[in-house]
């Protein structure tokens, strides 16, 4: 399209009004008993403001539901750390949300499971913990297995569908068959093998976490063999790391299109990592209603449509398909969130991705000056370098 020949009235950004915020992710706390090196919570989460109160969350749930949200995920941190979780789930259920609990299982006692069932919780997604620390006892079926077994039994005994989520990375990808076998043994309906995406803590630890091409290909082969072996018994979803792609993902299905994240302090975000975009002031549910946040706020309109795009995205035939990829990834790897996501091989900065991929092919033993893994904890979160 020749933009110069287009009448000015047509150049104006014609944004189709977005649909409702179908997905509400309620990050009720950043507190977490775990210290996962791939956590997507902000690396400076220690500096976050006070958590929303029960009353605040109840209001957010009502406003979001009125605006058309149907899926509600209770996440964190570890959401079970909040002792008002049952109250929030009950209200979400009463309002007609489909309610999902995204948990590590730590803190899910029989009493709390029963209370959550009574509150109307629809589904539990159980995630594996930090497998770097527990790889050994995980593989030897000791401590971790016992916790997961207990939690899985609780989930089953309350008749919840169970999705098991395991973040896959360089340090555990070679054990994917054992992970799948364990998921089957635990009775999970779905298993998400989600390759780590390189945001926040995972970005700090990227060189430790990005698998080699050989590891990745082997893991896909093993996964396919397991799919055949287990058939309908379990549905396995394998998400490849986008660093190995040539075209970027349509991140969050579009900015401010489907997803609304509310962080523990009440900041409303179009995705769970968008807070890193320091140039945008994100609204707070403390002083703006959900509908206004979604439809009116400057932040949620910032990257809607395509008028913000630069080349090569602006003139790309695929711009509708992937919307230029991920704004956070563009910022992290190119310094400007409005650039093309450098996963795209049309990006002039694509080498930032291929360099990381090239480094991932070097065996661990042959690497020099390796920085230690940075664990997600309060102490590290307060370090000025992060």
């Amino acid at each position, binding site marked *: 399209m020749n933009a110069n020949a287009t009448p000015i009235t047509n150049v104006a950004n014609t944004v189709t009004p977005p649909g*409702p915020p*179908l997905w509400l992710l309620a990050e009720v706390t950043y507190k977490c008993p775990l210290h996962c090196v791939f956590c997507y919570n902000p690396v400076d989460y220690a500096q976050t403001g006070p958590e929303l109160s029960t009353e605040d969350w109840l209001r957010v749930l009502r406003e979001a539901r009125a605006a*058309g949200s*149907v899926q509600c995920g209770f996440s964190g941190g570890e959401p079970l750390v909040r002792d008002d979780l049952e109250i929030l789930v009950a209200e979400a259920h009463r309002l007609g949300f*489909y309610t*999902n609990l995204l948990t590590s299982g730590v803190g899910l006692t029989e009493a709390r499971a029963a209370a959550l069932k009574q509150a109307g919780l*629809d*589904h539990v997604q159980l995630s594996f913990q930090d497998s770097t620390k527990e790889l050994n006892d995980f593989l030897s079926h000791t401590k971790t297995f016992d916790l997961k077994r207990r939690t899985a039994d609780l989930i089953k005994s309350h008749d919840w*569908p169970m999705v098991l989520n395991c973040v896959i990375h360089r340090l555990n990808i070679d054990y994917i068959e054992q992970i799948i076998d364990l998921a089957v043994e635990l009775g999970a309906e*779905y298993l998400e093998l989600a390759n780590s995406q390189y945001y926040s803590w995972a970005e700090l630890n990227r060189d430790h976490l990005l698998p080699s091409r050989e590891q990745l290909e082997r893991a896909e082969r093993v996964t396919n063999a397991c799919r055949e072996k287990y058939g309908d018994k379990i549905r396995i979803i394998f998400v490849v790391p986008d660093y190995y792609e040539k075209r970027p993902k349509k991140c969050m299905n579009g900015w401010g299109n489907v997803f609304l994240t509310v962080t523990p302090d009440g900041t409303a975000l179009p995705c769970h990592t968008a807070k890193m975009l320091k140039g945008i002031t994100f609204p707070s549910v403390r002083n703006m209603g959900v509908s206004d946040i979604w439809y009116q706020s400057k932040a949620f309109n910032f990257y809607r449509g395509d008028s913000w795009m630069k080349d090569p995205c602006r003139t790309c035939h695929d711009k509708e398909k992937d919307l230029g990829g991920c704004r956070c990834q563009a910022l992290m790897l190119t310094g400007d969130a409005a650039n093309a996501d450098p996963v795209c091989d049309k990006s002039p900065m694509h080498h930032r991705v291929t360099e990381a991929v090239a480094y991932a092919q070097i065996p661990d033993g042959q690497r020099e000056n390796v920085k230690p893994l940075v664990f997600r904890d309060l102490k590290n979160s307060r370090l000025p370098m992060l």
Partner: protein
Amino acid sequence: MSTVPVAQLSDEQAVQDLQACPRVAKMFKLQWEEVQQSWVLLYPEGMVKLNGSAGEIMSRLDGNTSIQTLISTLEQQFETTGLQADVLDFLTIAKRQGWVKL
């Protein structure tokens, strides 16, 4: 989050028994969404938005009503005839997607 797929149906999985009484599968929650003006199926972390006729069929499945009765009810309500093939086609898709149990 998808709309109902239009698929070519193979015979061996086709729903044919008019006396069967389908119900919405346990994993799914069916509800009317005012904002979307449509019936939706909700499941762990996902949603299927049903089109008009799919919603009319799904919202009448209770595990006690036979497909035969369902067809008669729909034909009466919409003052038409010959809905049997469409209803059976849809139920075949819905069964294959795991949305309904027979």
